[in-house]
Each structure stands twice: as structure tokens, then as C-alpha cells.
């Protein structure tokens, strides 16, 4: 069923926002995001919906998803459609090829702001990596099982993992690549989704 939260602005306001380039997400995109968040935890989408935020997207090369607080929406909807909105609120991630990729700020929001520790039976999957692996990960590289200092017992293929250094600082997110048993000698890998080195690598 469609979530009405995302289309609560009036028609006139909606038209203005669309002209500014900021569009409320549609059902399909909502499904992609839900599927993406399910890789972190199946409960996350429900927890996420309690927050006072709306999801919007802008159309660039990819569809950039923004998490916009209700307070911000009330101002944006009054902007006359001159110019184009490039960014607002929290950059949550992007959709490409019908798949949702969580951004670094989205990961920060989930890790730091959602206060998931208060939720019963809910734990984010975290992996602590050693010093050399930290540097390697901050260059955007893939890590191997031997680089892990501490990791959850059960790791499934395509699980999105929060990667921490030995000082317990979040350094990025990755996903588990588990080879099929039929491939000889292949081992579990943590592939980089996004990390803090990204800000330097992009050169802005």
C-alpha cells in the first residue's frame, strides 16, 4: 500500500517543488529504498518511517534521494520556481539501475541519529578492521576476512555492513560478497560502498 506521508503537500506546492526539481518519491522508488534498507536490517524501514522526515529525489545522472525534515518542506514549498534545488536536508543515497545505494550521510543518519540501541532485538551489523585495512578501505578498496578484528558471526551475501576502525570510528559502509561454494579458493570479502576518503577522491 502506498505510504501517504510522501505526498502530503498540496497540489500547488507540489507543482512548485517539481518545477524546482525536487520531487516526492514514487511507489517504485519507495520499494527500491525499502529493499536497500532490508540489506541492513529488515526492521529498519519501519523504524525509519516513524521519523519526521519525507523522502524526495532530484533527477540528475542518478536519482539522488534526500531525507527532508518537515520543517524544511514548509519553507521549500513556498519558494517560487526559479532555479533548481541541488541539495536539501540529508543526502540519503541514490537509485541506479533499479537499486538503492545508501550514501555516507544516510549511513551516518542511521548509525548516529536513529538511536537504534533503544530498539529491542535490533543490532546493526558492524565490522571492526585493523589499521592497515582501515587505510586500504579509505582508498576505496575491498577488504578480506583476514583484515577483520571483530565481526558478527553470521554474515550473509549482500549484507550492508558498517565499517569501524580500531578506535571505534565509523569509516564507511561496505557489503558482503560471499562466493558460492562451487568456486574453489574464493573467500569472503567486504566490498567498499562508500567511505570517508570519498570527499578527497572526488576532489571537491
Amino acid at each position, binding site marked *: 500500500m502506498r505510504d501517504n506521508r510522501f505526498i502530503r503537500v498540496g497540489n500547488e506546492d507540489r507543482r512548485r517543488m517539481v518545477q524546482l526539481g525536487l520531487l516526492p518519491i514514487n511507489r517504485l522508488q519507495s520499494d527500491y529504498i525499502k529493499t536497500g534498507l532490508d540489506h541492513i536490517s529488515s526492521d529498519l524501514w519501519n523504524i525509519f518511517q516513524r521519523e519526521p522526515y519525507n523522502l524526495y529525489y532530484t533527477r540528475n545522472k542518478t536519482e539522488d534521494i534526500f531525507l527532508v525534515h518537515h520543517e524544511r518542506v514548509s519553507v521549500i514549498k513556498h519558494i517560487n520556481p526559479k532555479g*533548481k534545488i*541541488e541539495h536539501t536536508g540529508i*543526502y540519503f543515497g541514490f537509485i541506479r539501475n533499479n537499486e538503492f545505494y545508501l550514501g555516507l550521510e544516510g549511513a551516518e543518519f542511521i548509525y548516529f541519529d536513529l538511536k537504534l540501541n533503544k530498539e529491542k532485538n535490533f543490532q546493526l551489523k558492524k565490522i571492526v578492521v585493523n589499521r592497515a585495512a582501515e587505510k586500504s578501505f579509505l582508498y576505496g578498496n575491498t577488504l578480506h576476512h583476514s583484515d577483520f578484528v571483530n565481526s558478527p558471526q553470521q554474515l550473509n551475501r549482500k549484507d550492508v555492513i558498517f565499517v569501524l576502525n580500531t578506535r571505534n570510528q565509523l569509516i564507511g559502509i561496505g557489503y558482503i560478497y560471499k562466493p558460492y561454494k562451487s568456486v574453489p579458493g574464493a573467500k569472503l570479502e567486504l566490498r567498499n560502498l562508500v567511505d570517508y576518503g570519498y570527499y578527497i577522491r572526488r576532489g571537491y
Partner: protein
Amino acid sequence: MSGNRGSRRKRLSKLEFFEFPNSDSAVELADEYGYLPYMTERYLQMFGNEETIELLKANDQLNPITIRINTLKSSPSEVLGKLEKNGYEFTKIDEVLNAYKLIYDLPHEELVTQSSNRKPKVKREWDKDTGIYSEDELDAELYSDDLDETGFARSKRELASLEWGQLEGKGKADVNTKEEKTDNKKPQQKKNDKKTKENTPSISEENKRERRLRKIYSSKIATLGSTHEYLMGKYYLQGHASMLPALYLNPEPDDLIIDMCAAPGSKTTQMAQMMENKGNIIATEIDDKRIKSLIYNLRRCAVRNTTVLNFDAQNLKKLGLNPSKILLDAPCSGEGVIRTDPSRKRTMHPTHIKRFMNTQLNLLKSAVEAVKTHGYIMYSTCSIAPEENEFIIQKILDRYPKIEIRPVNDNKGLPGFTEIFGQELHMDFLKARRYFPHIHDTHGFFYCLLYKNE
């Protein structure tokens, strides 16, 4: 409301850029310090001879590195603790909350020993073929990647082709080469000449020290800009003077603020921090390339109350918003940031400044029209030219009687000009603030708080 605008000796009729015929001393100073002569002439008109030299010398020095701790992500004690572990030392800047200055004041000898792979100094001997002191390898190495007076690097070949004495700064060189021509003496023969001895070593030593410092300093900046804490957005590298406009605009959590010309986002992130990510900031930027750096800085610093609009702020009123505060850090010639970007000594021509003046006036006009009654506008530039600062605001004061200048609680900055280039300006410019490299050891900066009355 300011009814009394003061008597005007000469009314500022149109927006004009003041150029004066270049005097000999202006040309001499321009040659010595590598400026375009029109700039030094204007400085002489503004400050007089002695202060101009101080300013030019100060512009050749290093700007202190200052950081602002981002309290949206961390606390000063946490960040400073981690940076101190990595060998950085900071001292607090009193007037700006969460701002710290990097301590880096090692004696000359230590700097020489610190810079790696440098051989100890040997006795200088003149090499006729190369035209440099060949045995002084330290200097030869230093000159090889040295900056010339235009701010560009000199090649070894270029250096070798230079006349003796030109390495020491053109002003001094002129004296020496003239003497050479008349006396037809070799430089080594002149060793006993008192004049030459007095002239050359002091400046070159000073310059060398400065350049060594600049190298080590810039490497420090490079590392400060790539620490884990920086990447996590726990602090922002921002000049001291550049922190003041946002500070004195005093953004509050319930404000709607428009930041015109917001890229790269230093002041936007500072305001968001002061507002604790509450309220609303609309950051406008017209340049597609600069907008990317703005967005990435906002993302890195966890700023969430800001909407970035790709929009020409000269049409601000068309947005239909009624902001309570507007920050206009206007595009300018950047005469105040020569310390960081020495190329501006020779690349910024009067035509550029005239173009900036028109843009600045249009931007300020549109800000005045857009801000709500009882709202504030903070106008700032990193230029010390009165044409880009006081003159722009004077035009606004003349045209919009509802606008007045409000004082700021800044005791360190100098007041704005009330009379300059034969033009009498509003007395309220005493409430505006100016920062100069030779007085405050910061970038040159101007800011002025405007208020829209009923």
C-alpha cells in the same frame, strides 16, 4: 534610522573605480614586490608610504592556519585531543567560539634542520658560468622551485640566465645592475663594497626563511586537510577574518537565512553550526562547478538545515521568500587574500574590479529588496578596495533610506573609511569593520551589518 548622513565634500555620483597616474615610488614598489603599478599607487593613496610597505611585506608573509571545530559532529576537546596526538598545537581565538589557530613558530635553524635532505651550508662562492652561487647547494635547491615576483615558479635555467643581483628582488637588483654597468666590475670584486653588503643578504635571507616556512607550512595545511577528523567533518579550515561575518550576523535557530554566493560553504556551515541545524538556510550559488564543493562541504559537515539552490542571487526577490537575515559574501577581486594567492598581485586588472563592482551592487540591491522589514544583511568581501566595499554600501544608503548601518561588537577590527580618494562617505562607516594583513595578521577583509528599518 540615520537621518544625519553627514556633509559630503564630494558626493559619490556614480560607481567609479579610482585610478591614479602612477608615481615613481608606486612603480618602484610594484617592481620590488611584484604588483601591478596601479595597485601600489592606490595603496599609497590609501595608506601613505610607510604603511603601504608594511602592507606589501605582510602580504608576502604566511597567513596563520585557523580551524573551526564543527560542533554538529564533535567537540573541541575531542578534536583538539586527537590533533595534538598527531603533533599539532593550537591556541584559542578569543572572539570566535570554537575557533583555533595553529601554533607553528619554530626558529629558523629548526626549520632548516627539519626540512629533509638539505645539506649544511657551505661557504658561498660565485660561479661565473651559472650566474649563481654554485657551492651553496641549499640555495640552489631552494631557488630551483622558488617563486618569482609574479608568483610563478622559476626554472633553474631561467635562474641561471638572470643577471647577478636579480635573485635578491628586483628593486635591489636594479641598484646593483646599474652599478655594474657603470663600474663594469665583477660581483666578487664588489665583496668589499659596503652598499652591496648591506643591501643584498638581509632581504634574501628573510625571503628564504619565508619560503621555507611556506613550504613546511603548506605541507602542514595539506595534512590538516586530510586527517580522519577533517574527512569526518569534525573541523573546517577557515581563515580567522572569514569567520567574523557569520558570527556577527548572529544566526538563531528560528531564522530563515539566505546565503547569497554561498560556495564553497565555509560561512554556510558556520551558520548551520550556530543554528544547531535548526531553522532554515537557503544557500544560492550560480556557478555549477562551485556548487559541487558547496554540497560536499555541507554533506561532510553534517549540515541538514540547508537547501542549495542553483540560482542567480541578483534576482533574489523573485524567490518570493522573506528572509530575516541575509549573508552576502560578495564575489570580489580578492585583494585581501594575496597571502594565499599571490598570483592576484598581477592578474587582477581594473576591468575585473569594475565588473565585480557592478555585480556587488546588483547583489546588494537585490538583498535589500528581499530582506524582510527589521531584517539584517551582512555584507562582506575579502577585498580591501573601498570601491568594492564602502562605495557599494554608500550607493545603497543613498538609494534606500530604510537601510542603516548597525554596529558590531568587534573591538579588534578597524572602522571603515569615511573619507577616501577625495570622496566623503557616510559617518556610519565607522561601524563597519576592516581587517588588514599588516595590522591583524589575517587576510584583508571588510564586513558591514545593515538593517532594514520600517
